[in-house]
């Protein structure tokens, strides 16, 4: 056997939509290389879920069923997938670069003694060789990687690197397998997931958002941003470091660990634009970035950019907005 194996992710019976981005990437890679493409769904009672990838143009969908896969554990998922990979023997294993994949995929790759190219933003073929593009230095530079020699390679894909709606429909047989998982395999004891913030603030419906990042330097300066938001009639939001420092409550955090927003206008103030933040806001219709560092990755996604000192730009902008609205 050979080909591409795509690992799909769901939790509590709901698909993570990055699974379909991974399936789209697997189909594209399969076409380019002339490889068969299969997908795997892990869990307990996943028959209904597996029907969805089975309605895509794939050669096979593996359903790994086990009561010990009902809740996610790094040990359970690593063992089950390692067992399947040893049987399917794919050339490439594709995964979505989710928090869960970050938890088990390095183990899985190490167990196979093979490399994991993580957080990949693009795959291309150059003279028969696979080239994987990924970001370094928090998005400041990109790098092309290739694999030395032949053999299995694991690849995790950054959110949004491939389009979920590009998945080609079709029909694939479902093959249910039961991996051997005894009690001693799984050392982690997971408890039920929970949400913390009592706040019910939903930034997802906000039309206008002014968001502040690490560049604001200290809590006392937040008022500068609050005033801008007020002048514009916008909701105030923040990147992770601002909430970690307690300068704004966590219910205002935008990004992979916070809320996902899609406003008409998103003004990012002093936010460098780490991918964890970008995934939460790049769906905004218009993005304005204000940052002192012209090389900050936030400018990659911005429609309008101001390179400058936010302590000068914000008061000027607030005043002019007030005048414009008066």
């Amino acid at each position: 056997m050979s080909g591409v194996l795509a690992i799909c992710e769901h939790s509590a019976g709901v698909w993570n939509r990055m699974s379909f981005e991974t399936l789209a990437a697997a189909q594209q890679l399969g076409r380019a290389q002339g490889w068969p493409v299969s997908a795997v769904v892990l869990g307990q009672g996943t028959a209904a879920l597996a029907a969805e990838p089975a309605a895509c143009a794939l050669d096979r969908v593996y359903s790994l069923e086990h009561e010990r896969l009902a809740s996610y554990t790094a040990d359970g998922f690593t063992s089950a997938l390692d067992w399947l990979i040893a049987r399917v023997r794919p050339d490439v294993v594709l995964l979505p670069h989710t928090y869960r994949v970050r938890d088990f995929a390095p183990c899985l790759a190490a167990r196979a003694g093979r490399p994991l190219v993580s957080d990949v933003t693009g795959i291309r073929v150059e003279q028969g060789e696979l080239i994987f593009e990924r970001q370094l230095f928090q998005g400041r530079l990109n790098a092309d990687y290739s694999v030395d020699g032949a053999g299995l390679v694991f690849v995790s894909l950054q959110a949004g690197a491939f389009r979920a709606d590009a998945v080609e429909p079709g029909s694939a047989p479902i093959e249910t397998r039961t991996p051997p998982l005894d009690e001693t395999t799984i050392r982690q004891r997971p408890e039920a997931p929970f949400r913390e913030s009592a706040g019910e603030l939903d930034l997802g419906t906000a039309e206008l958002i002014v968001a502040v990042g690490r560049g604001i330097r200290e809590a006392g300066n937040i008022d500068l941003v609050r005033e801008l938001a007020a002048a514009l009639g916008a909701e105030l939001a923040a990147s992770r470091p601002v909430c970690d420092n307690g300068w704004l409550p966590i219910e205002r955090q935008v990004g992979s660990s916070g809320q996902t927003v899609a406003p008409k206008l998103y003004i990012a103030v002093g936010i460098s634009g780490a991918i964890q933040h970008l995934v939460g806001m790049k769906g905004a219709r218009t993005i304005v970035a204000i940052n002192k560092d012209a090389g900050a990755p936030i400018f990659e996604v911005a429609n309008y950019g101001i390179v400058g000192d936010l302590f000068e730009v914000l008061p000027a902008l607030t005043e002019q907005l007030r005048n414009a609205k008066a």
Partner: protein
Amino acid sequence: MQILVAIKQVPARDSQLTIAPSGEWIEEDDLAYEINEPDAYALEAALQLKERHGGEVIALCAGPERVLPVIREALAKGADRAIHVAEDHPEVWGTLACARLLAQAAETEKPDLVLTGLQSDDLGWAQTGVVMAELLRLPHATLVIEAGIEDGRVRVKRELEGGWFQHVSMPLPALVTIQSGSIRLRYATLMGIKKARTKPVRRLTAAELGVAPARQLRLRRLHPPRHDKQTTMLTGSAQEQAAQLVEILRHEVRVL
């Protein structure tokens, strides 16, 4: 309790990065370096666990001589001793070989708990800690924002996506990777800095640890990020930039 913390030295956060003429790495000559931020939180978590449960914190760092300030900083903040794996470019060894280097060094201590940051701010693979766990045959958890010890187990609070959290417990010894941000970092005191000078730093080499480079991936080329979007840059003084933006918000974005 023996707690080992693996830390890495990375280019300082706001460094101006220039691609070297070879295209395969950055110019390193004028770079300032600092401790990788998530590793600073791992160190802090280790020091807090030691304060609660007693024992010893050992800092582990691989790299050339220039990583010594990061080791000194860890000792000044309260680590009891350190291991320096002296290797010029462990990062080009590849994740698996680099993790093997760190795992072999960790093995010489038989720690109850290994902590490290969830990823590095330079290469960002987010793998080394987890691979170390696999090589050391330790149970692990990632993206951890709180860790407590009870009845020979470590119970951690993990971050999931979209504002969700989860508690997970594992038997000790175990390995945990720490997320930045949730605890307050301490500063080194003058007394700490003074004491650090006399704390032992054990120097090991890859040869002594019996580990050889085994690169599996090749960095072919570095390049600046591609602009997918056309970004209009507003220039001039702050007043002029603000004036242009107000015009754009009124006429283009139409939100005024």
